[in-house]
């Protein structure tokens, strides 16, 4: 079983991200593997354990993104590939999907390609279905459980309306959610192995595709208006007394 996990590097969720001089900045906050993509790596490793095979972590990003790939290696991925090219700085999600699909083909295809549900930075959640579309493979989104059986995969999709069981032939694209289980911590051995691993870097030219022109472009960034909330603590002799005051305060806000 050949499994590819697509991961991205993003600023840590605790980072104080802001818009400054038309740029997004996060100071010296650390860059980490996109938290949703840890579930993708976890799902991939679980399937490797269940069926045998290999897990390849794949990322489009700058040189710094090696660290995110190393995290995947330390968790247990067998190899990692970085697609890095200044020409890719401004691609949109369709462009990213085309480049990922080309990289997946260059790797030699896969039985399953696993994605996170969405990125913390862009937050679109569109790259997995777009990659599936470019590859022409079935898309199984928001997956919390996976069972592979002779050339097909059955998954449980965790949706707002309940859990849906869906079956498709392999190869398939999956996006993985939290119900897959807590991502494993890198082991000591894993960290050592990752620190020594050679991570090949592929340029767009090596992928044999042209740089996709971005259709979606950012024209401006700004900081959201900051509403300074001052919390009014409602006190009282008894819970009932507190509740009476609180109920009045809530109704006075006219939100009900």
């Amino acid at each position: 079983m050949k499994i590819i996990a697509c991961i991205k590097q993003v600023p840590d969720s605790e980072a104080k991200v802001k818009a400054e001089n038309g740029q997004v900045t996060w100071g010296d906050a650390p860059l980490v593997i996109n938290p949703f993509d840890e579930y993708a790596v976890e799902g991939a490793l679980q399937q490797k354990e269940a069926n045998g095979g290999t897990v390849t972590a794949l990322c489009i990003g700058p040189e710094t993104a090696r660290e995110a790939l190393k995290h995947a290696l330390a968790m247990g991925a067998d190899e990692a590939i970085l697609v890095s090219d200044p020409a890719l700085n401004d691609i949109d999600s369709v462009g990213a999907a085309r480049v990922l699909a080309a990289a997946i083909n260059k790797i030699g295809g896969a039985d399953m390609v696993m994605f996170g549900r969405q990125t913390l930075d862009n937050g679109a959640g569109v790259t997995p279905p777009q990659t599936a579309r470019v590859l022409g493979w079935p898309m199984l989104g928001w997956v919390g459980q996976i069972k592979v059986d002779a050339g097909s995969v059955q998954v449980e999709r965790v949706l707002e309306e309940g859990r849906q069981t869906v079956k498709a032939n392999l190869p398939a694209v999956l996006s993985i959610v939290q119900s897959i289980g807590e991502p494993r911590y890198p082991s000591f051995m894993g960290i050592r192995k990752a620190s020594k691993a050679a991570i090949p870097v592929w340029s767009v030219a090596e992928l044999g595709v042209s740089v996709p022109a971005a259709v979606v472009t950012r024209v401006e960034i700004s900081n959201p208006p900051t509403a300074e909330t001052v919390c009014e603590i409602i006190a009282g002799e008894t819970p009932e007394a507190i509740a009476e005051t609180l109920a009045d305060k809530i109704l006075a806000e006219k939100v009900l």
Partner: protein
Amino acid sequence: MKTWVYIDHFKGEVQVASWEALGLGKSLGAVTAIVLGSGVDAVAKAAFEYGADEVIVVDDASLADYRAEPFASTFSALASSSTPDLILLPTTARTRELSAMCAVDLNSGVLTDVSALSVDGDKVTVTRPIYEGKVLEKTVCNAKPQFVTLRGRAFPKPAQEAGRTGAVTKAEAKADVKSSVEGYSATEAAVNIGDAAVIVSGGRGVSNNPSLGDEKAAAEKGFALLGELAGLLGGAVGASRAAVDGGFITYAHQVGQTGKVVAPDLYIACGISGAIQHLVGMRNAKLIVAINKDAEAPIFKQARFGVVGDLFAVVPALTVALRKRLGK
């Protein structure tokens, strides 16, 4: 500008944000609503009542259960023959997939989770929160049709005009079967915290009442109390990840970074500490109320009103007090 609005529904039950999208579409001119599914006459009828001028319906047994590929191929075929400029959709798990795939098919782009939109001539500029809402970006899509999925509750829902009708156009489904739906677990009731005007949310604190037995037993009672308050207010029950991980409530209820981003009018956080990953999911609520035993809990920094106390005492008392005032 030729505007289409995709009416997202689950087995005939329409996502409210679809109507919000219709309302926005109407403000730009005439609107065509698109309804895909099987046995969806009622959905088409409702689309007229919420303002659609025309409805294109693809009613086909192959579209009974939503799957990305047949929906995307059917929609792409419609859009490539009728060439709309702008396609508005509510933001749901389904529409993210659908619009994403159609954008590939039609060599265009998609702007998701949009919280504001402006039109200048035939140029559409949208605002979308990025980096978990820490920054806003204005973006444009330089191809057509441009797919724009709207954040729930970011645009007003139009009034329903009973009996309003119009012309229905029937169209064909396009077969593209790549997966089969094997079943559905009924264990999870339909929850859509994204649509709710009021959310009463519980965290690990909901499991903390030793007088009720172990954590699980306490949490069951605790979430029942939250459910009562939510029910009274016509709202939904939300949860922190700690409550979901504890097995006290299902993932569909989870608010936050790895759960759902919500923006209700009222959010009551009970026994939730206020970790950043939770805050990013609810800080756009109009009014936030926090009930927590710990006066130092960070949730109070985000709340307008706070109660330092035991949720097992405060929540039922609040239900009583509000019931009295609402005359229910």
